[in-house]
């Protein structure tokens, strides 16, 4: 699992942290944050993709080996949320990299995130 903050307001990071914490324990289902995109199978992308983060997101996506899954976490990642139309926003995550799974919510509850991760790990 590799987390990419493409412009989030760090609200989603709080909840993803909770999901990997001891209480919701996403690791119980085999989901683990790893040190390098090369080790990762899933990209957790949060926030609307700002103009400055479009290229880094693209490169992280290409650095991850096949088969890879992109999970867009939070309303901003799905449709830019309240930041739609801001001049610094390049678009939603789907406009930059192909998205496989979306987790709505601002920020989505840890239970929703863990549920999404379970569908990815299949456990």
């Amino acid at each position, binding site marked *: 699992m*590799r*987390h*990419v*903050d*493409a*412009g*989030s*307001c*760090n*609200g*989603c*990071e*709080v*909840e*993803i*942290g*909770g999901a*990997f*914490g*001891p*209480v*919701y324990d996403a690791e119980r289902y085999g989901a683990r*944050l*790893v*040190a*390098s*995109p090369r080790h990762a199978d899933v990209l957790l992308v949060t*926030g*609307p993709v*700002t*103009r*400055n*983060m*479009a*290229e*880094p*997101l693209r490169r*992280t996506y290409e650095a991850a080996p096949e088969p890879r899954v992109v999970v867009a976490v939070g309303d901003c990642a799905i449709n830019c*949320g*309240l*930041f739609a*139309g*801001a*001049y*610094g*926003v390049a678009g939603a995550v789907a406009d930059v990299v192909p998205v496989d799974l979306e987790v709505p919510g*601002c*920020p989505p*509850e840890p239970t929703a995130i863990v549920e999404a991760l379970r569908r990815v790990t299949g456990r």
Partner: protein
Amino acid sequence: MPSTRVDLDPGELPDHAARLLDDGHRLALVAAHHDDPGTIRVVYLFVQGPPDTRTELHVRLDARTPAVPTLARLSFPAGRFEREMRDLHGIVPLDHPLPHRLVRHPHWPRGWYPMRPDAGPPPEFGTPEGPFPFLTVEGPGVYEIPVGPVHAGLIEPGHFRFSVVGETILKLKARLWYVHKGIEKLFEGREPAQALALTERISGDTAVGHALAYCLAVEDATGVQVPLRARRARALLLELERVHNHVTDLGALCNDVGHGILNAHAWRIRERLLRLNHTVTGHRLLRGGVVLGGANLRALPEHAELAAVRADIRDLVDLALGHPTVRDRFTGTAILSAQAAHDLGCLGYVARASGLPTDARHAHPFHDLGDLLTTRVLDTGDVLARFRIRALEADDSLTLIDHLTTELPTGPRVADPAPPPHPTRRSGVGITEGWRGTITTRIELAPDGLLSRVKIADPSFFNWPALPIALADTIVPDFPLTNKSFNLSYAGNDL
């Protein structure tokens, strides 16, 4: 608390500003306004307290050739505000010592200033990864380590370029503004009530801080008086937000030295606090708690719950500081001297850990907390000080919450919002002590009551330059620990 307004022309600005700085004022923010096509008005807000005094210097510039003499040599934050204004508004600070872009990355189009009313849709963006003028340090054995913007773990994007010899850091250059979305532009032309939701999403973990600063500014502009109960509820929400963020940092600091078990316990306590937030305001991050003219509480935290959380936090801190390896890793790591903190204008716990007693709850109170408010100040300025200051503040906040809960009457809707505002003045300033430090927001209302300009100054904007200073002769493995001890907001800084 209305601010005294002084109209100047550009020439008089430096002397006037120098006098204000001598009297101990602090430059809170610099905002440019495009009132009419011909002129651009720049507002310099200086604040001081107690007693809570605010002075605004208004400087009118010709829109065709907007230029203003620089204050960079008088106050370091001024230099950064001027560079930001140059990037977004096109106002050239004359004789600026460091005339480089701050907000716009190299691939942003030239000559296009987004905040100008006539800016129009953004033209074509160049290819990213243009040459950012990193200062290359040469010398025998010196090598560079680029880190970011995408990091392992849950960290916001920022690029750090280290120049290192062996393991000692010679120089760190932090390149931020990766999450710059242009929020201030979104505020223009919106209903004040409608824009409240946007302020809660400037920095997700400081929703109450930013919303409260914005509401105070609007209330200052419209002259709305907030009832005592609402002010107490707002103080309660502010402290709740401070506690749950401090607990996370206490755990994260232990995790960065490899002591994972304390981080697990910190997250357990935080989850308990987030669920408490949900019961109080219906949202885990306290969104919707602060509304224009009042506060909206659904329930009050019980004393037993607060006592249990306080006991847990004290155990966590004792365990951490009792562990010799953890304590040894914290002590003497990345020291930020009081002089450097003062020169940079640092705010919040970063300043208080280095000996500067800055606290907006004391200097610019919106609700008198009386003798309950004790501003904690430590002087060693290392990671240990920043750890202990958080522990002490979390404890004090819990005491405040206890006290405020007893004063607030029980019942679902604790404080209903006040009558609709009627515009008496056209601008207002809101200052509040978010959990990271003093947040200052200045708004201006158009005659029809809509927002014409909102300027937000997050404490991280002031504290980011302090990180490279604190890293003088620290070794590379200690950088993540230092970075987490500062825990500055990227979203709040980049806006």
